[in-house]
Structures are given as structure tokens and as C-alpha cells.
């Protein structure tokens, strides 16, 4: 049985329908039922859909200049061009755009996994940073203030056009059709780009896959912010949360006898008496997002010359310490960014509208008709996804119906590499019936 499953995994792309038949009767047996664990660690290696090793993938990183007039100081000059990753085949094939999630770049671990998976299934793959990521803000965000669905979609659409043109020129591959996928915030962006493209008719995406999308972006952002305020046993108002975690690790190593750090470290700790608790895992996830929020707030301010952090007359050299700016930006969570940077700018043109109107415009609810009536759009999500409220979750189920692949566990994207799940969404992307 194990070898059978493995073979299936390898041929998942080509034998999608076969895999589906084999799968149909099996109950969902994802082993990580704790949503925080699933979010942090993903699927145990043995149950992951196998992908080729990265060196065996024909790939490269390319860059394009999207905004010729954008000026950046020397300290951040590496973000003048938009960098992206391409994996390609020598034969003509469909091309899939893959959009990263909040605070993630084109080179993140998760994107690399999905890249290998899609490439193995026979697609060319172009991976782009999230429009909320600092590099995209600097190189490709017209307004410099990401967070509005329709505007971000225009930025992304432009970046995609330039990226694919550049990649085909440099690498000389042929594209037969286009597909689109995004993870988390990238999934929301994918939906907006797909809708935009129906008006522009440029890519005519044959399949659009939303992986763990938020529904109401600002509600999701509020939930992520909340994680960073989780109270933790043993950390009081004078303690550092990071020191607390390091002390736990330290105790673990002391009881273990040697400090040889291995890849399985996290799984090993989680099965020891020093396992991280749910509040600690939640806080870790929250802290990672808070650092992304700080990056976002800082970069947007810099590009729009907002003066919140860097004074207008200060030139950031390579040797300039950015630490004082990070110290201040740390205080701005996602909700702060929306309220203090995005909303005031938006209200300049929408004076009579409220933050609720702004939230609705960037919510998947504003795309309900498009999502409901378009058989080529599907979503993968979980009943315990951290970023969804109950009504968000119901919205996905009701709007997409059979095209909402909803699982009881997996947290925020933890099961996206779980073989039965990959088989199902790959089958959808490859055009089989769900």
C-alpha cells in the first residue's frame, strides 16, 4: 500500500483521474488535528506529496523593472527591480502564476514546494511575491499602499504581464494556456486578478485556485493581530516571549544530552515534555505576522514619503542603521496599517465612505457573483483555518459549493502538501472533473 500511494503521488499530475477514483472512498485522515501545529509544521514528511528535489527542477530567478520612475535609497536599492522565480519545461505547456501570501516572497519555502509540485505536474511556473511584501511594494506597487483588492490586482496583473514576457524572451519556452493560484492573501489577490482579467481578456485563465483565502481581509487581519496578544503562562509583563521560548529549547537540549540540531528538531520537541503549547504556537505565528506588518508599514511609508519613520530629508545609505525605524514600526500591527496609512489615503477619494465600505471592496464578498458563476474557480480551505470567521467559512462553502474543497483539519495551509489534498487540487488545475 505505501508504495502504491507513493507511485500515485509521483504520477499525480498525469494520472489525476486515476488518483481521484482511488481516493474517492478514503476518509480524510490528516494526522495533525491541532490547527496551530498544522500551520507551523505542515504535513509530516512521510505523508507529503513527493516532489522532485530542487536541483532537478529547471528553474531560475529573473527580474523586471516595473516602475521606471520609482526612486529608492541605496539601503533598499536591491528592491528596485521585481525579482521572481521561473520553473519551465522545454516543451510547450500551460503556465501557472503562483502568488505568495502575506509577508511572503517568491522564494519562500511554501512557494518553493508548490512550484515543484506544479512543475512536476507539467506546468511552467512563475512565482511572484505577495503585493503586501516589502519587495513588491518597492518595485511594483503603484500607490505604495497595498491592501485594496482592485488596486493590488492591477499592480499584479501588470507585473505578471511583464514577468511572463521577460521569461519567454530570456528562456524561450512556449505557453499553451494560463492558470492562476495564490495562497492566503495571495489567494484573495488571485481572485481579484482573475476577475480583472475577465474584463481585459489577456490571460483568459482556464483555472484559478484559491488556497486558504481570507474572505473578509480586514477580519482576517484582525485575527492575525490578535494572535500576537495571546497570553502565555510563564510570561508576565516583564518577560520576553522569545527568551521564554529559548529557555524551553534550552531545557530540551539539556535533557537530551547533545545539541546537535537536526531537521526533525521541531517534531522532536513537540513530542517531548517541553512541547510548545497552543498559546505559544499562536504567539509565534502572531509574532511572524507582526514582523511582516512592521515591514509593510515601514516600506509603504518610505515609498509614499509618509514621514512616519524616515524623515523626508534623510538618505538611507547602505551603512545607515535601520534599527531605530524597526523599533518604531514594530508598534504598528496590520490593523494599525489599515487605519492609519491605508484608510486616510483611500478617504481622500472616498470622503463620504467608511472603513466598512473599504473592507467590503476588498472582501471576496464583493466578487460573489464572479466566484459563484465561474466554474473555473475553486478554493481549498479548512474548518479550522486560523484566518477565517465562521461566516467567512460559510461564505466559501455556500458560494463555491462543490468547488470549495473544505477539510476538517489542517489549520492555515498545513495540509496543502498532504498527498490526498494535492491530488484533489492538482486534478482541478489539470482540468479533470472534481
Amino acid at each position, binding site marked *: 500500500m505505501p508504495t502504491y500511494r507513493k507511485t500515485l503521488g509521483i504520477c499525480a499530475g498525469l494520472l489525476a483521474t486515476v488518483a481521484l477514483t482511488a481516493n474517492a472512498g478514503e476518509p480524510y485522515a490528516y494526522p495533525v488535528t*491541532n490547527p496551530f501545529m498544522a500551520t507551523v509544521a505542515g504535513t509530516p514528511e512521510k505523508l507529503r506529496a513527493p516532489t522532485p528535489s530542487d536541483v532537478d527542477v529547471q528553474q531560475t530567478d529573473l527580474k523586471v523593472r516595473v516602475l521606471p520612475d520609482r526612486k529608492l535609497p541605496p539601503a533598499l536599492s536591491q528592491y528596485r527591480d521585481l525579482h521572481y522565480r521561473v520553473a519551465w519545461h522545454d516543451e510547450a505547456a500551460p503556465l501557472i502564476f503562483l502568488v505568495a501570501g502575506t509577508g511572503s516572497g517568491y522564494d519562500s519555502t511554501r512557494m518553493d514546494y508548490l512550484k515543484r509540485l506544479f512543475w512536476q505536474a507539467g506546468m511552467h511556473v512563475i512565482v511572484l511575491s505577495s503585493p503586501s*511584501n516589502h519587495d513588491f511594494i518597492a518595485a511594483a506597487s503603484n500607490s505604495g499602499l497595498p491592501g485594496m483588492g482592485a488596486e493590488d490586482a492591477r499592480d499584479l496583473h501588470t507585473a505578471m504581464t511583464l514577468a511572463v514576457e521577460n521569461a519567454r524572451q530570456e528562456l524561450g519556452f512556449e505557453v499553451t494556456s494560463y492558470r492562476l493560484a495564490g495562497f492566503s492573501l495571495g489567494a484573495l489577490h488571485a481572485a481579484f486578478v482573475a476577475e480583472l482579467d475577465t474584463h481585459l481578456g489577456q490571460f483568459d485563465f482556464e483555472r484559478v485556485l484559491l488556497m486558504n483565502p481570507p474572505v473578509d481581509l480586514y477580519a482576517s487581519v484582525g485575527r492575525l493581530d490578535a494572535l500576537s496578544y*495571546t497570553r502565555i503562562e510563564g510570561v508576565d509583563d516583564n518577560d*520576553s516571549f*522569545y527568551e521564554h521560548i529559548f529557555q524551553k529549547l*534550552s531545557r530540551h537540549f539539556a535533557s537530551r544530552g*547533545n545539541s546537535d540540531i537536526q531537521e526533525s528538531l521541531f517534531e522532536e520537541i513537540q513530542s517531548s515534555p517541553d512541547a510548545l503549547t497552543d498559546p505559544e504556537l499562536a504567539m509565534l505565528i502572531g*509574532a511572524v505576522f507582526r514582523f511582516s506588518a512592521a515591514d509593510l508599514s515601514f516600506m509603504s511609508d518610505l515609498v509614499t514619503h509618509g514621514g512616519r519613520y524616515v524623515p523626508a530629508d534623510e538618505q538611507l545609505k547602505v*551603512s545607515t542603521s535601520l534599527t531605530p525605524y524597526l523599533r518604531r514600526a514594530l508598534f504598528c500591527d496590520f490593523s494599525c496599517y489599515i487605519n492609519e496609512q491605508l484608510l486616510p489615503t483611500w478617504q481622500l477619494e472616498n470622503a463620504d465612505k467608511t472603513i466598512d465600505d473599504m473592507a467590503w471592496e476588498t472582501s471576496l464578498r464583493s466578487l460573489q457573483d464572479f466566484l459563484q458563476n465561474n466554474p473555473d474557480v475553486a478554493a481549498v480551505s479548512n474548518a479550522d483555518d486560523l484566518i477565517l470567521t465562521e461566516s467567512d467559512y460559510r461564505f466559501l462553502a455556500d458560494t463555491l459549493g462543490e468547488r470549495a474543497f473544505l477539510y476538517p483539519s489542517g489549520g492555515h495551509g498545513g495540509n496543502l502538501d498532504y498527498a490526498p489534498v494535492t491530488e484533489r487540487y492538482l486534478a482541478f488545475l489539470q482540468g479533470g472533473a472534481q
Partner: protein
Amino acid sequence: MKRLLPLALLSTALSFSAVAQESGPQVPAYNDPLLELDIDERDNRYQFERSSLRALNVHDPLEGVNRRIYRFNAQFDRYVYLPVVRTYVWATPSPVRTGVSNVFDNLRDIPNLGNSLLQGKFQRSGETTARLLFNSIFGLAGIFDVAEKMGLPQQDEDFGQTLGVWGVPAGPYLVIPLLGPSSLRDGTGRVADWVIEDYVNYMDNRDFMNDYQATWGIWAIDLRYGIPFRYGALDSPFEYDQVRYLHTKLREFEISH
């Protein structure tokens, strides 16, 4: 995980019962993970800020120079070092690369042993001695790490750690050209380790490498091949600050174990 099993069974049971009540396509019942968390609702809730601000307190008087070197290292890595490593990976089968790494790792057990002794870690010194013997003899000059398979994994100890164990503080944070994050203490330690390896000249390796200088190239490639760190991987305009903290913590950690 074991203690979570009852919880898992319970939640599975709950979701099944919820599914049974639904009509139409089976939608697993929503389950809000945030409900079990105790979220701080006070106005002065600063756990994240407090912890992160403290993490930024690293003694870095040479920050301007360090940042320039950091940028240089990142560029060198991107345009020279990594492309060379990628070519190496492309050109050699995996067992060859593992063998190469093992040979250099085996040589590194010399400073590992010396520093274990200097730190008074006698059990560890015994284990490292055993590793050296097994790997040098049965592992054919270190090509095979037979000791690891016998339950004796490599235990890194460098002279910077030894100084740390002796109570020498890390001193100013340093970014060393080509080598990356370090400190005054650890940078000094690197030189000492180099001298130890030169002096011991285990299995005449230094003479051999000096006679066949291409082996230094392989040594340099293997050095980078074994380090998973990638510039840009932290995905932040504040990467320098984050690396500085993580590196400093990691060293503290290595010294206390």
C-alpha cells in the same frame, strides 16, 4: 502529540456528528482555533513589542561597517558563491558530496576534540575521540561517517565557545567578509581553531591541501554547501537586525550546551 490524542478524537467525533446533521454537500463543521486562546485585551498589551525591542539590543558599535560588509557578503553569495555551489551540486552525485563533507567534518573533529577538552567536557571528548578513530580508520579517512551510524553524532565545539565557557563575553558584533555574522570573541576563536588544525596537521591534511591547492576550492565549496542559510530568506528590509539577533542567540545557546 500523545496528550492531544483524546482532544483529537473528541474533535473528530464532534465534526462527524455535525456533518451528519447537514444536508447537501458535506461541509466539515467550522471550528474556531482562537476560542481556546486567552487574548490580552488591555490597552497596554505590549508582549510582542517588549520582547522584540529587547531582541534589538545587541552591542554593535561597528554597525555602519558591518552593514556594508553584510551587503557585500549578500552580493558575493548571490552572484559568485551560490552559483558555484549550484554547479557543484549539478556536477556531482549526492554520495560524492556526502563523502566530501564527511572528510572535512572528520578533520573538524580535531578542533572539536581540543575544545571539548579545554571546556572540561570529558564524556564529549571521549565520544569525539572515538569518532575520530572510527571514521579515520573504518570510514576510510573520513569518507564515511560510520560513527554517526553507531550513535555518535558530531558535536561541534569551537574556540569561541571555549572562550564563552571560560566567561569571556561575546564583545562587539562583527560581520566578517565572506564568512558572515560573528563577534570579536568568536572571530578570535576562529583564528585559534585554524591554528590548532594547522599545528595538529591531522593525517597530514594541511600539507596535502597545500600541495594540491584545488582542494582548498573544494573545501570552500563544501563549507557553503553545508550551510542552509540564504540571504533574503528572512524576507524583510530588516534582515540585518533579525540575523544579528538570531546569530547572537544561537551562539549563547551553543555555549550553554
